[in-house]
């Protein structure tokens, strides 16, 4: 198992997960995640040589439906739940800002 998770690691994954974590919270989360991962490291005791990974109770397979028109969700009803919508579309602030 890898080295114990660091504050820098947690700051990195927080960024990937689009979460702003304050410095004092970062310490606490790092300690908690470290404990959970340490517990998980017990799995190293198992002999996993040649064991296939299991992602799903049935294995994942593609399920296709017939290519025929059928009613779908009402567009206006869907858009009525958006924080901001205009002209049949979701509306968001500028995507490209000052930051890189």
């Amino acid at each position: 198992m890898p080295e114990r998770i660091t504050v820098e690691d947690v700051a990195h994954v927080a960024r990937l997960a689009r979460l702003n974590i304050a410095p004092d919270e970062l310490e606490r989360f790092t300690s908690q995640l470290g404990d959970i991962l340490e517990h998980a490291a017990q799995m190293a005791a198992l002999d996993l040589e040649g064991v296939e990974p299991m992602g799903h109770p049935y294995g994942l397979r593609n399920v296709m439906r017939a290519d025929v028109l059928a009613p779908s969700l009402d567009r206006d009803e869907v858009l009525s739940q958006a924080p901001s919508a205009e002209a049949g579309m979701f509306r968001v602030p500028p995507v490209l800002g000052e930051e890189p």
Partner: protein
Amino acid sequence: MTELTTALEMAAAVAAREVTATELVEASLSAIAERDGDISAFNLVTDDAARQRAAEIDVEIAAGRPVGRLAGVPIALKDNLCTRGVPTTCSSKILEGWRPPYDATVVTMLAHSGAISVGKTNLDEFAMGSSTENSAFGPTRNPRDLSRVPGGSSGGSAAAVAAGYVPLSLGSDTGGSIRQPAALCGVVGVKPTYGLVSRYGLVAFASSLDQIGPFATTVTDAALLLEVIAGHDPLDSTSIPEPVADLMSHLADGVQGLRVGIVSEFMVEGIADDVRRRTEAAAAALEAAGAIVGEVNVPAAAYGLDAYYLIAPAEASSNLARYDAVRFGLRVDASTTPDMYDATRTAGFGDEVKRRIMLGTYALSAGYYDAYYGTAQKVRSLIRRDFDRAYQDFDVLLSPTSPTTAFAFGDKTEDPMTMYLNDVCTIPTNLAGHPAMSVPFGVGDDGMPVGVQVMAPMMGEIPMFRAAAVLEAAANSEAIS
């Protein structure tokens, strides 16, 4: 007005015109109004809609038209089940006020059965927790002792049934979130075989583990509700095509010759003595009823918690990426879209959800994928293999549902690992995809309910319910004597 307590009795009385759906709904709403200020099982009580639906069913019955199997029976829905036009929050600030544009398939099936939803119940945010203390709207209290937690994450649904508001409710179970609160509140809770009940419209937490299931006061009612909600759904690609087993006709079959294995890995240190004794008493009751009881090892199950706390957060980190303030729910304004994502997710998610998103992101990130997520998936294979071996010698397996009875508020909130240990006996069956249920079996040293867990192989609901029915009868006769 009425002494009807079970859904079966209520539905029969409504069909026989001995009571109206309106009377049943009014009784349910009164009970909620009387006690839910203290218990807080509900995030939302849909009283107007319930009254309207009851009136419609009463008209149908008065006109002599055929009605469904649960016509007039009040039911409560965990607030992670989508209800069209009715707020569905997952007890998270990030979905506050959201009104889904569609119903979950189970909600549609319940409507066809004539069951009447009286409201949406509280949960740990996004079903992540074992005490309902992680709700953005405050905790639910255990109806049997208000100083204790109801368990979780489906704590509101368990409490709504235990408090007698409704005879039935629905929850969801990713690692024990139906069975553990059922045990702690003293009601029946079922996690069906993965794929038996459609997940369409269940807000996703960990898609390869999530399954919707019933809470009830009796094993018979739980079987009835499971029959109503089970079945193939083209809207869920993991829904199994086999027809639903007829559970109700097998409930009185008994356990003569049924092979019952007590799982040694779930009877070890960490399980409270009183809970272990009750589990042994349950095994003795099954043996007295004719079952062949033995001990069995499921060695990899001892690593279930470790695999689960990588797999479930990994799937959650992906599923919860959809909360981006664009299509639904909360938006915290910012000058750019990326900043809006960050601000919204930071303000909208609670600590436990953030913890799991970060843990899952880490377990999936480059350089750690094989060591964490990959290892956990292999352990998942071993757990399935060890269960399958156990089921070569046994028809059902038995264990405690939860290591302890209901604990006090704040007891386990400081350290996440302590809370996670609550699910040590329930998690392995989710990883395998197997069915399992919790049946009340007396009380612990503190007078609080103890639940025992009956597990079964894929589609093994019939032997599971047969064993559960015998345990229920034994617990009832013990309580009388």
